[in-house]
């Protein structure tokens, strides 16, 4: 107790200086403090190690492009998952919602026909709408019906995939407009940076501002930290949770659309572990499963660590199966660090 009440004047001055430092760039300090810095260093370390082991193959524009393109769709999902986990929730349905949105969007574009931007925009809106719908269902059941998020989203995980299979009869939909594949799917800006990567990072940037610099983001943290306190502060907790899950659903829908553009098919069977990959990325990025703590920058690092590992192992000739082992270990390490942080905070 006495150590917290007494403070030397010199010490106080240093703290004042620190606070003033924060005043100058509060948003940046909040982005850069916490565990995301540490996890960023791990990512940099991995890149350095692979660069040393195989400089010519690993350090090239085309390889960077590969890694980033592989990570782009997952990044969009992980951005939404960051919001969900910051509220101390979870969403297992993302992969199925992604597939469902992709299937319905493909059908819609097929029905409209043609190869114009109009068709593509219809597809995009349909994908976003499908995702939004599932998200609202999730959010409503979680906040109003008080069914645990794990159960609700496990249920919709099965339902969304089931409906996707019912719609297609289990056969992948391949009628995707060429224009979509040629531009968003495989096109590059200035022949260098893939559209997919630009879209994913733009989404991450917009949602980073939403999470860290708006009331919406602040309420997301508050609910994850202490739901009752949030309620007493006049925050409409139920409504906010529905919005968060709706956002998650919409981003899953967007990811479904991007996946459709990239592979020019619906890849129905290819997303059964998207949920776990997204959760792992978010948690590796320093977001606490207990809620109330997390950064979007950390999530970006968390998405790229598995992607870089996968790519690096292939390049240096290690069996790529080691990637799963390594990602598992990093995941456990990340949660352990979160536990350590919590323990040290509550000791006082």
């Amino acid at each position, binding site marked *: 107790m006495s150590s917290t009440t007494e403070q030397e004047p010199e010490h106080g001055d240093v703290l004042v200086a620190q606070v003033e430092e924060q005043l100058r760039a*509060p948003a940046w300090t909040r982005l850069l403090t916490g565990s995301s810095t540490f996890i960023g260093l791990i990512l940099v370390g991995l890149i350095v190690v692979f660069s040393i082991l195989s400089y010519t193959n690993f350090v090239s524009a085309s390889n960077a492009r590969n890694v980033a393109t592989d990570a782009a769709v997952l990044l969009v999902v992980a951005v939404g998952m960051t919001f969900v986990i910051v509220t101390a929730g979870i969403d297992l349905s993302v992969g199925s919602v992604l597939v469902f949105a992709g299937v319905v969007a493909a059908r819609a574009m097929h029905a409209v026909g043609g190869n114009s931007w109009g068709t593509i925009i219809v597809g995009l809106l349909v994908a976003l709408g499908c995702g939004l719908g599932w998200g609202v269902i999730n959010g409503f059941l979680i906040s109003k019906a008080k069914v645990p998020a794990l159960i609700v989203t496990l249920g919709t995980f099965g339902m969304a995939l089931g409906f996707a299979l019912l719609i297609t009869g289990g056969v992948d939909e391949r009628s995707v407009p060429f224009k979509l594949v040629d531009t968003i799917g495989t096109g590059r800006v200035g022949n260098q940076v893939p559209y997919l990567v630009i879209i994913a990072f733009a989404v991450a940037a917009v949602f980073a501002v939403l999470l860290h*610099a*708006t009331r919406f983001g602040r309420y997301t943290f508050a609910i994850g930290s202490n739901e009752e306190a949030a309620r007493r502060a006049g925050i409409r907790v139920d409504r906010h949770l529905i919005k968060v899950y709706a956002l998650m659903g919409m981003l899953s829908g967007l990811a479904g659309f991007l996946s459709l553009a990239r592979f020019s098919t619906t890849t129905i069977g290819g997303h059964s572990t998207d949920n776990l990959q997204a959760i792992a990325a978010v948690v590796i990025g320093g977001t606490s499963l207990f809620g109330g703590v997390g950064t979007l920058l950390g999530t970006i690092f968390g998405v790229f660590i598995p992607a870089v590992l996968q790519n690096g192992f292939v390049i240096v000739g290690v069996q790529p199966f080691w990637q799963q082992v390594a990602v598992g270990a990093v995941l456990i390490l990340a949660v352990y660090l979160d536990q350590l942080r919590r323990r040290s905070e509550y000791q006082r």
Partner: protein
Amino acid sequence: MNDSPILELRGVSKAFGAVQALYEVDFHVAAGEVMALVGDNGAGKSTLIKCIAGIYSSDSGEILYNGEPVSIHGPKDAAKLGIEVVYQDLALADNLDVVQNMFLGREETTSLRRLDEVDMERRAKETLQTLSVTTIRSVRQTVAGLSGGQRQSVAVAKAVMWNSKVVILDEPTAALGVAQTRQVLDLVRRLGEQGLAVVLVSHNLHDVFEVSDSVTVLRLGQNVAEFKTKETNQTEVVEAITAGKLSKIPGQPAAEVVV
């Protein structure tokens, strides 16, 4: 101290089914006055403050604010009048820092709907300074890292920063050690000195005698006594808490029954 009450309750009753939690309670507090509300467990202290805070609505009786009858149907109504409650379990979000907690639900934004962190931080510091809360080293540290007394200070600062006129503190020292209790009692006294009406709900008569100007005693849902702290002693108050005469006659001022 201004003697005309800023907040006054007249004949407030509240029943939960067959249980008469409050019966014809009169209560008042003036600006600059620290009014202690004491009573045994189940005497109706919590029910009374929840009626004032708008969490419960009373069955009968009236609430006057600045002499005008008002109806309080929810926490927002109370807040609009300038009545703030600091609950025993504080209701702070542990993972948020001091500034974020003080502004929770009432954040300031810039023209682009971005949070105005710089201004919020400045105002939080100013409020803590006017309350002479000096023990919090950085307003950007999370609340989880604060001591019990510091957390209580943040909760009080959060309550008074909205131009509030009446602050209700529910057992503010219940879970605190000696030094922290001292911090909080000093803070309570400063609130009164700054012209706020303070309602201090407490079990601890030592605390009550240290900071309050007046004491209202509740027993079994009725107010059985009211004292000026200077003109009474602990024995008299304990007597009222445990054996104060219950008046079942509506409208009769309780103070006259005892004194």
